[in-house]
């Protein structure tokens, strides 16, 4: 090996880019070469000095924002498929981008869209003759009715004692998919409780939203997503949700 070769290869040696046999060759030359040995030492020192200082620049936050804004917004997509996938994969997505606000934004947006559809389904149900497919105040009639119609068995709980009367169930469509609707009444107010399967089994605490004047209470539990929607006041709808959740807990534990 010549000194000219070694002079270039010693950098690869410092950078750890040489395979074992070439590294040995370069080291052997340098060990026996009074010209190359001090060079290796000097460049090693320089590399270390360079490595100890931070030579990186940090992108200004405004640049980051500008770039994010210039990328197509995931929520622009209006396709049902993307909505559905974003929805179904909600928890998977947040796991993929545990740190990514992007995924969370997408998910929220999907939820908003779904909430819009929930409102539409609720409104449809209030039109004459659309409220229930199975009319019964008996949870043991309503619950089996869903069997074979859906691949999910929604909990149907009689809350009459708590002031919410079960009046039946029906199949509805949200996101172009069949979804269970369990119907309750309080005084003259209809509550539609929509139940859909979700990929996530985590418990998500209730969140209230108001869409087009309707209150929606949304939560997830044991692999099911719930939306309770009504023109009831938020406090009464929250009460309904609390009682329903308490009852499902008793049912599953008891």
């Amino acid at each position, binding site marked *: 090996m010549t000194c000219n070769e070694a002079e270039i290869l010693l950098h690869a040696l410092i950078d750890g880019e040489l395979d074992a046999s070439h590294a040995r060759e370069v080291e052997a030359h340098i060990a026996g070469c009074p010209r190359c040995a001090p060079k290796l030492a000097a460049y090693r020192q320089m590399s270390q000095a360079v490595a100890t200082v931070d*030579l990186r*620049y940090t*992108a200004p936050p405004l640049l980051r924002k500008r770039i994010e804004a210039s990328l197509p917004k995931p929520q622009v997509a209006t396709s049902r498929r993307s909505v*559905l996938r974003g929805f179904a994969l909600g928890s998977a997505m947040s796991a993929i981008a545990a740190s990514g606000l992007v995924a969370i934004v997408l998910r929220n947006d999907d939820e908003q869209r779904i909430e819009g559809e929930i409102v539409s389904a609720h409104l449809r149900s209030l039109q004459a003759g659309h409220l229930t497919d199975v009319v019964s105040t008996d949870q043991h009639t309503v619950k089996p009715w869903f069997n074979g119609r859906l691949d999910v068995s929604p909990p149907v709980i009689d809350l009459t004692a708590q002031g919410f009367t079960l009046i039946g169930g029906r199949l509805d469509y949200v996101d172009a998919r069949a979804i269970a609707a369990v119907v309750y009444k309080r005084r003259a107010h209809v509550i539609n409780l929509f139940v859909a399967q979700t990929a996530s089994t985590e418990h998500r605490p209730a969140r209230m939203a108001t869409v087009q004047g309707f209150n929606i209470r949304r939560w997830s539990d044991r692999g099911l997503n719930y939306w309770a929607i009504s023109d009831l006041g938020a406090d009464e709808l929250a009460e309904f949700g609390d009682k329903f959740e308490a009852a499902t807990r008793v049912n599953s534990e008891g």
Partner: protein
Amino acid sequence: MFSAKAAQEAMPVSNSGDEADKALRFREAALPYLNDVYTLARYLLRNPADAEDAAQECYLRALKHFDTYRGPAMKPWLLAILRNVCRAEFSRRAASPSTTIENTPEAADEPPLWHEEQQTPEEQMLRERDAVAIRRLIDALAEPFRETFVLREVNNLSYREIAEAVGVPVGTVMSRLARARAMLRSAWLAEQE
């Protein structure tokens, strides 16, 4: 019922759905390297405003080609795109012959941002002075050497990745890096005298 697989089977493929997917995947894959992209842009263009524009353009182009992206690793791929953006900027500019320190006041003026560890104020001051000095020396290197040096020492690319990003043989990367370090070292030594 709400399973993704069933959804895919049931729904016709929709472009906007794919676009949303793509945008999301792109953000997750590419945005974490923004500091790398911006850093290289700063060293190549030696001007914060131009570097910002180049970084933004880089991300737009990368998104456009994200469909056909099959590798290499995301970082060298982005840096290769950035490099092309910068080259376009070079040819747009009147080819500037400047490789001298006087032409790069920004590097010295700009207060650098630090990822700080536990340091005494004295150590930190020393280090900042070092960093400012080294950045200035890097900025003074001629373009191909500066580029290779930054890709290696600052962006931490391997020789092979640099070769791919720059579009030259690995041997060229090695000789450029050796020359870059030699020039930097003599400039450094000259400064210390």
